[in-house]
C-alpha cells in the first residue's frame, strides 16, 4: 500500500512501547495514580491500542493473556503472528496493513469482531475455529473470487460483512450472490440488506441454495445418527457388555481360526455350526440383557447415593452457614462498639469475652463438620458394600453364562471331532461322495493331523471366550474401585477444604480483634 510515511523506519514492538501504551491507555486520575503505585501487570490489561506506530512485525504480546480488544491498525504488518496466546480476544483490528494471507488466528476462538480492511488478502481462509464471529470487515482487499463468500457460511452469528472495494464487487450479481449465500446477514458494505435484494437472491439462487441446504441437512442428520450410535455403544461399554448383542463373539472366535473354514467343508458341519451359532448368540444376548439391567441398577444405586450425600452436605452446609452468618452479624456490632469504646478496661473485658465467643464458634463449626464426616463415612461404607454386592452378583451370573459358553464349545468340539473321524474313515475307505477341496483333503492324510487341526480350532475358540470374560471382569472391577476411590478422595478433599475455611475465618476474626486492641494501645 502506498503510505505517506513510507520513509519512516519500521519499528518493532518492544518493552518501552508497550509500557508507554499501557500507561497512556490505563486508568486516569486517582485510579491512575493508584495503578502506577502498584504497577500494572500486563496479564491484566483488557484493551491495548498500538495504532499508527509503523510496526512491521507483531511480537511480545504473549504476556497480555486477558486482552479482549487489540488494535494494530495503520501499521505495516505483513504477517499475522504472535497472537496465539491472546485467547480472550473479542475484538481484533488489523486494518490498513500489508497482510497477504489470513493465518495464525486459530486460537482466538472468542473473536467476534475482526477487521482486515485495506490489506492485500486475496482468499478468505484459515478461520474455521472462529465460530463466534459477528462482524467481519475485509474491504479494500484483493478478493476476486465470489466463492470466497461461501466460506463465510459457517459463521452462524455473522451479521455484518464489509467486502467493499474488492474486485468481486465489480461483478454483476455480487450483492445478490452474497445475500443468497449468507441469508442471516443484516448489513453488507455499510448498508442494510433490503428485503428486495433478499427476495431476488432467494429466487435467483433457489436451486443452488436448496441443494446446499439439503447437503448440509444430510450431513447434520448423519452426524446425529452417528452420535446416537456412539452414545448407544458408550452405554453398552458402560454396562461392560458391548458387542454381545449379536454374533460378534462368535464371529471373532472363528475369525482367527485358520482351520475353521476347512473343517466347515466337512459334511454335516454346516448345520452343526448353525445350531452352535444360534445357541451362542442366545447366551450372548442373555448376558447383554443382564448387563443392561444391571447397569441400570448400578446407575440407580450410584445416583441415589450421590443425591443423598449431596443433600446431607447441603443441609450441613446450610446450618454452618447460618451459624457463621449470625456470628458475623454480631461480630460487626461488637467491633463497632469496641471501636467506639474509650475505657481500656472495659474494652479488654469485652475483648476477652469476644475471643471466647470466637473459640466457641470454631468449636461449633468443627463439631458440625465432624458430625458430617461421621455420617458420610457410614453411608459410604453402606454404598461400598451394596455396590460390591451388585457387581459380585453380576460377575457370578456372567461367569455362569461364560461357563455355559465353554460347555457349548466343548460339545461342539466333540461333535466336530466325531464328524472329522467319521469322515477320515470314509476317506480312508474312499467312500466319500463329496469332492473336498485339496487343502481340506490335506487334513485327512492321517488322524493326528486331523485331530490337531480340530483341537487347535477348539483352543482358539476357548481362548476367545476366556479373553472376553477376563476383559469384562477386569473392567467392571476397575470401574468399581475407581468409583469408590473417587468418592473417598472427594470426601477427604471436602473435609480439608472445610476445615481450612473455618481456620481461615477464625484467623481473620482474631487478627481483626488484635488490630483493634493494638490501635487502642497506641
Amino acid at each position, binding site marked *: 500500500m502506498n503510505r505517506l510515511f513510507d520513509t519512516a523506519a519500521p519499528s518493532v514492538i518492544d518493552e518501552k512501547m508497550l509500557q508507554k501504551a499501557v500507561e497512556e491507555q490505563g486508568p486516569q486520575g*486517582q*485510579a491512575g495514580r493508584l495503578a502506577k503505585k502498584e504497577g500494572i501487570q500486563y496479564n491484566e490489561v483488557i484493551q491495548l491500542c498500538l495504532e499508527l506506530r509503523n510496526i512491521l512485525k507483531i511480537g511480545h504480546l504473549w504476556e497480555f493473556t486477558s486482552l479482549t480488544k487489540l488494535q494494530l491498525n495503520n501499521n505495516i504488518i505483513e504477517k499475522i503472528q504472535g497472537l496465539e496466546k491472546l485467547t480472550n480476544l473479542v475484538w481484533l483490528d488489523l486494518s490498513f496493513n500489508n497482510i497477504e494471507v489470513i493465518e495464525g488466528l486459530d486460537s482466538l476462538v472468542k473473536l467476534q469482531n475482526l477487521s482486515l480492511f485495506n490489506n492485500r488478502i486475496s482468499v478468505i481462509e484459515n478461520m474455521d475455529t472462529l465460530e463466534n464471529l459477528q462482524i467481519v470487515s475485509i474491504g479494500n482487499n484483493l478478493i476476486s473470487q465470489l466463492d470466497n463468500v461461501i466460506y463465510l457460511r459457517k459463521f452462524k452469528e455473522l451479521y455484518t460483512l464489509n467486502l467493499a472495494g474488492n474486485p468481486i464487487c465489480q461483478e454483476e450479481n455480487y450483492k445478490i450472490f452474497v445475500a443468497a449465500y449468507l441469508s442471516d446477514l443484516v448489513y453488507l458494505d455499510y448498508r442494510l440488506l433490503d428485503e428486495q435484494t433478499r427476495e431476488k437472491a432467494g429466487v435467483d439462487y433457489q436451486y443452488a441454495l436448496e441443494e446446499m441446504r439439503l447437503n448440509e441437512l444430510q450431513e447434520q442428520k448423519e452426524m446425529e445418527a452417528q452420535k446416537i450410535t456412539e452414545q448407544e455403544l458408550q452405554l453398552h461399554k458402560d454396562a461392560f457388555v458391548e458387542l454381545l448383542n449379536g454374533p460378534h463373539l462368535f464371529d471373532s472366535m472363528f475369525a482367527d481360526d485358520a482351520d475353521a473354514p476347512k473343517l466347515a467343508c466337512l459334511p454335516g458341519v454346516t448345520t452343526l455350526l448353525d445350531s452352535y451359532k444360534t445357541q451362542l448368540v442366545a447366551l450372548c444376548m442373555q448376558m447383554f440383557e443382564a448387563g443392561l439391567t444391571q447397569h441400570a441398577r448400578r446407575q440407580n444405586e450410584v445416583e441415589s447415593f450421590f443425591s*443423598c450425600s449431596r443433600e446431607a452436605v447441603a443441609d450441613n452446609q446450610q446450618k*454452618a452457614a447460618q451459624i457463621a452468618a449470625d456470628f458475623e452479624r454480631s461480630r460487626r456490632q461488637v467491633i463497632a462498639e469496641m471501636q467506639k469504646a474509650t475505657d481500656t478496661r472495659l474494652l479488654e473485658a469485652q475483648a476477652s469475652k469476644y475471643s471466647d465467643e470466637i473459640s466457641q464458634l470454631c468449636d461449633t463449626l468443627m463439631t458440625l463438620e465432624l458430625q458430617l464426616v461421621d455420617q458420610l463415612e457410614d453411608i459410604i461404607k453402606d*454404598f461400598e458394600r451394596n455396590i460390591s454386592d451388585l457387581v459380585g452378583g453380576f460377575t457370578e451370573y456372567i461367569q455362569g453364562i461364560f461357563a455355559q459358553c465353554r460347555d457349548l464349545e466343548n460339545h461342539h468340539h466333540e461333535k466336530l471331532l466325531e464328524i472329522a473321524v467319521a469322515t477320515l474313515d470314509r476317506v480312508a475307505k474312499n467312500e466319500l461322495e463329496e469332492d473336498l477341496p485339496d487343502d481340506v483333503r490335506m487334513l485327512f492324510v492321517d488322524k493326528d493331523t486331523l485331530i490337531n487341526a480340530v483341537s487347535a480350532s477348539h483352543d482358539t475358540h476357548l481362548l476367545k471366550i476366556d479373553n472376553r470374560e477376563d476383559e469384562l471382569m477386569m473392567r467392571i472391577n476397575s470401574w468399581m474401585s475407581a468409583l469408590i476411590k473417587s468418592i473417598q478422595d472427594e470426601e477427604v478433599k471436602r473435609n480439608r477444604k472445610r476445615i481450612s475455611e473455618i481456620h481461615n475465618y477464625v484467623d481473620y476474626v482474631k487478627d481483626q480483634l488484635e488490630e483493634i486492641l493494638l490501635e487502642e494501645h497506641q
Partner: protein
Amino acid sequence: MPRRLQQCACRYGNHVNGPPPPQACKMEVLLEVEPELEEAELLQEVDEKEEEEEGGEDEGLSELRELEETLSRVRIAPSAPHLLVQKAEVDQSEWPVSYRQNSTQEKLLLAMADSFRCQYAHLYPDRKPLLLCPVNESGVQKFVSTTLRPTLLPYPELYHWQGCASFVSDFLSLEPLDPPVDPPNKLRSPTWVLRTQRGTCFEFSTLLCSLLLGAGYNAYCVSGYAVKEMCLLNQSRQECPLLKTQVKEKLEEQKQDVRKYSVKPPRDLQSSFEHRQEEKRQEDTRIALLSKQKEAQRLQEERERPSPDPLLGLRVHCWVLVLSGNREVPENFFIDPLAGRSYPTTSEKFLGIESIWNHQNYWVNMQDCRFGCAEMTYDLADPVKWEYLLCGSNQSILLIPDMKKQQEAEKEEDEETEEPKVFEMPPSWVSKIHISQEDMESRCPGGAKLIQYRKATVEKFAPYLLKDGLVTRLTTYDDLECTQPNTVREWYKHRHDHLDERELKKATNVTVEQFRPGRSYALKCHRYITLVPETERQMDFYSHARADGLASRVETPSEMTETFIDRPDFLHYRHVTYGKRVRACGLGEIPNNPEQVQRPIQKVVERFHRDPSKAASEDVAEREFLLSEDRIQVTYHREEDRIIPAWRNFIKPHDAGDSQNTNAFTPQMASIFQVDPFKKPCKNLFLYETLMALMKEEENVLMRIKDSEKEVRAILAARQQEESGIELQISIYNTARNEKARCHREALERLAKEELLRKEEKELDVLAPFLAQLGDPESLTQQQALQLRADCLAELKQRLIDRANLIQGRFEKETQELQQKQQWYQKNQLTMTKEDEEAYLAYCSDAMFRINILKLRLSRHKDRAPQKYLALDEKLRRDPRLAHHLW
C-alpha cells in the same frame, strides 16, 4: 304398566288381609277397559273414591296440622325476606291450548296413572298418596312427568348443574307448602313459575330438573321428606358456603425415591427419660385443654341446637336427584333446589323418598326409609326396589331369578307378548322455557337477595344494580344473633378501577382490596388502614406486568420493603430504613405536604439472587448502604461448597462527588475477607474502582427509592379519587347498557324507519285527488266511499281507454304514412336515382319497425288493462280509508 301392579298384587297378596275390597274389583274392570276408550265417568268415580279415602287418612294428621298452623303463626317470616315482585297475572286465554286441555295421549296416561294409584292405595293403605296428576295453573290435571320440559338454554352458565341450581335458587322465591305435610295438589308449569318468580319446592324442582335434563344430566325430581330447615329454606344454621376456605389439599407427591443412603441424624445426647417426662406433661396439658375445648364446643352446640321439630319426618319436600353416568358425574347426588346446593345421597337431612320421576317415567320407592335415605340404592331397573309406572321406557328390566314368581308371571307374560306396543310418555304440555337476558342478569327477584347463614349474611345484587358495582356482600358476625360484625367482604363487578374484592376486618380496621389486572402500576392487592401515605400498608403487584418486576411493597412508618421477581439484575429484595423526619422548616410551619420534607434514609439493604454467569465470590449477594454512617458493605455469594461468604466493606471517602483528585483512597478504607486464603489479595486499584461503582449505585438506589415513594403517593391519590367518583365499566358488547352502542343502534333504527316512511310517501295516493274534491273529510260515509271507489275506477278506465286510443291513433298514422310513401314510390319508381331508392328502402324498414312496436304495445296494453283495473279495485278495497265501507 298397570299389568305389572296386578302382578305385584299377587306378589304381595299375602300381606293383604281379608277378601279384596270392592276397589280391587273396580281395578280389574278398569284393566279390561281398552286404554283407547275415554272412560271419563269411570275415572271420575275412582277419583272421588280416592279423595274420600285421602280425607280419611288425613284425619289422622289433623292434629299435627293444627299444631303446624299454630307454629306457622309464631314462625318468623322466612329468613330470606324476598323482594316479591308480583308480575302481572296472565289471563288464561293467552295460554296455549296444551295448558287448557289434555290430548288423547295425556288422557290415556291420566287413566293409567289413576289405575296405578288405585292399586297403590289399595296395596299400601298406610303410605301417603302419590303425587301423580296435580292440576296445573289453569286447573287441568297433568301428569308430573309431562310437566318436565327438558330445555337447554343458550347461556353457558346453565350448562353445568352448579349454574342451573344457583340460578333456580336465586331466581325464584319460595312459597312454603300448605299444609307442610302433604304434597300440593297443584303443580304449575315452569313457564308460569319463571314468569311470576315464585313457586313451591315442587315447582323449583320441576324447573331445575327441566334445565338439568336439557343439559344432558340424568336428573330426576324426587318427592319425599326432609328436615324443617331444608323445607323452609332456613339456612341460618348452616355455614355460609362462601366462607368455606378451599383447602387445596396439596398432595405433595413425596418423591418415593429410595432414601437408601440418607444420613443418620446426629446422636441425641439428651436424657430420654427427661424427654419422656416432659412429653407426658405436655400431653396432659394438651388433653386438659382439648377436653375443655370440647366441653365448650358441646355447650355451644347445645345452645345452638334448635327446638325439636314435631313434624320431623313428615314434612314433604321435593328435590332433584342426579344419577352418575351422564356428563361425567362420578357419583349420585342430590340437589336442593331451594338453596341450590348439592348433598351426597347419604345426607341425613333427607328423611325419605316416596317417588321419583323424570320426563320419561315415574318410579315409586319400595325401599325402607325409616332411617333416612342413606341406605337407598338408585338402580331404577330393579323392580323390587323401584316400582315403575310405564313399562319398557329405556330401562331394561332385570329378571329376578325367582322361580315362584316367574311361574306366576308366566301367564301375564304371554299376554304381554301379544301386545308389543309400548306406551310412551306423551310429550310435555309445557311450552318452551325461555329466560330472557335481563332475567339472567338480574337473577334474584328485584335484583337483590339476602340470605341468612350461621353467623353470616350474604347479600346478592344484580350487576349494575348498585352504583358502586357491588354484587355480593358477605358479613360475618361474632355472635349467633348477628349483631357484632366481624368481617365484611364485598365483591364488585364492572368497576372502572378494576376493584374486585374488598375485605374489612372490623376488629383491626384493616382493609384489603383485590384488583383485577389492568390498573396503572399493575396493582394487585392493597392492604391498609388509611389512605394516608407513610402509614402501614402492603401493596402487591402483578410483577410480570411491571418493567421493574416489583412483586410487593410493605410499608411501616419507618421502613419500606420491596420484593421483586424475575429481574435481569437478579435483585429480589430491597429494604429501606428511615430515620426521624428532620423538621427543616421553622417552628410555625407544619409540613403538611410530605413531599417537601423527605424522611432521611438511614439504611438500604439490597439482596440479589445468584447470577450463574459470574463467579460466586464476585457475585454480589447483599449490598448494604449505611447512609448514616457513610459506609457501604457488600457481601458476595457463598461458593458452592463453602459456608462463609466473601465480603468487602468500604468507608466512603469524604467530599465524594467533588473532583476525584481531592478524595484520596487509602487501603484502610476497605476491609475485606477472602474465602480462599491462597488467592492473591485484591489490588487497591480494583477496590477503588469497586468503591466508585458502588457510590454511583448508591445514588441510583436513592433515586429508585424516591420513585417508589412517589409511586405510592400517586397510587393513593388515584385510589382516593376513584373511590370518590365510582365509575362502572360497560363492555362495548353490552348493547343494553353501553350508551354509545345504544345510540348507534337507535340511530340505525331511526334511519331505517325514516327510509320506510319515505318509501311509503313515494307511493302515490290514488285517492288523493278525489278526496280533495270532497274537501278532504276526516272520515268517509258509506256512500262517499262507494262514490269514491266508483270514481276512481272510472277514472282509471278512462285513462286506460285514452291510452289505448292514443296508441291506436299513432299506429294508424304510421301505417297511413307508409302507404303514402309506397304509393309515391310506385309512381316514381322508374325515375328515381339510386340514392333516393336507398333512402326509401331505409325509411320503409324504419317505418315497419315502428309499426311493429306500436302493434306490440297495443296488444300488451290490451292484455294489461283489465289486470290494472282489477289491481286498483283490490287496492281500493284494501285502502284503510275505504276498507270498512267496502267489505
